[in-house]
């Protein structure tokens, strides 16, 4: 039930309705729960609503850490 999928915003109208791209499929999305959201942002979609915007900097930092682990085999 609390399943959320990361998806990229492709369209927003003036009523906070729009579409996201999830693995190539366009899905209708309601953006009323977010204060600032732009086309190109990544969000978590849950039950048709975008509930949070993904933070690129934070994501990159964790990814960097994991990539390092994949290389060295050390945490």
């Amino acid at each position, binding site marked *: 039930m609390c399943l959320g999928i990361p998806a990229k915003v492709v369209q927003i109208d003036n009523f906070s309705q729009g579409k996201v791209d999830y693995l190539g499929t366009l899905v209708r999305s309601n953006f009323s729960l977010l204060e600032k959201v732009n086309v190109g942002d990544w969000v978590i979609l849950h039950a048709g609503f975008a509930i949070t915007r993904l933070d690129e900097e934070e994501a990159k930092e964790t990814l960097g850490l994991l*990539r390092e682990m994949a290389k060295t085999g050390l945490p």
Partner: protein
Amino acid sequence: MNEYRDKKVIAALLKDIQTKARALSLPVRLMEVCGTHTMTIHKSGLKTMLEEAGVEMTSGPGCPVCITPNEIHEAALDLLTGRENLILATFGDMTRVPTRRGSLQTAVPAANSLMKIVYSPDESIDMAVRNPEKEVIFFGVGFETTIPAVALTARKASSLALRNYSILSALWVIPPPLRALVESGKLKISGFLYPGHVSVIIGQKPYLFLAEDYGIAGSITGFEPADICLAISSILDQLIQGKPAVSIEYSRAVRPEGNPLAMSLMEEVLEPKDAFWRGLGLIPRSGLKLRTRYSAFDAEIKYGLKIKGGSGDLPGCRCGEVLRGIISPPDCPLFGKKCSPDSPHGPCMVSYEGACLIHFKYRVK
């Protein structure tokens, strides 16, 4: 995102977890509160790998379909079978929960009534607009992840002045049952994995009492195998240092303050009530209901429903104990015999986040 599932990454993280778990002389037992975490842990094989590393995981009450007592499911059944010209809209899992009188899928609706499965609460509003001659009831279930969407839906119904729309709500908040579980004294765990998408909404603060008042370690995390491992590693650090906290290992999605807009919306539309949870009983302020100014959209009031208090299972079903983390699904005598995904005897075998279904699907044969 592949890094979050990379075998080498997971192996390195597990090694780290094993070293830390060995440094602690006590057995490490953690509860993953959220059903979606249970899914990741079993699907990825982490359950067994973590056991080998010295960490036992147990499932918690984090499946809203599962903790909704049969009394509420029966109220929905009464509406569908007893009222003509009605559309009962709800999420898919809710339609298969077995009660003494069958489920929403096996029920025979009253004349001109029907049950519809929706993905988003928004769809139920569209149904009410398109079908003015029918009464539309949205049977809305969920934790904080879903609650803002339901609150928005109630506000939209109000602004459209829809007279044929109402919500039968089964809305639950996560922190009160965690307090109840800890206070029961029966739960022997040293840490919680907190649900990532509930925390997207409520942030870090609502869990702090568990660390400060009860000394329980914890970490908010996401749904990839590496997220789970990073959180467990953080919990082990807290245990080693003797400093229980609420760390965030899902910072790409969760801010410490949560989603303030979503929270203020919940506050505006809904208010807390004491509520019965399956297996856990009555928990103070653990449920939400529509505030008085939205009561025209409250199905319980609109149809004068008298939902009995209670949190019983069908005879023989031990979902209640599974939800409290007291038994593991295979400990239930019905598991895999009288109760299976094709013929579920309790909600934990119905929902995709139900511990029994997940154990059944990914059990080691």
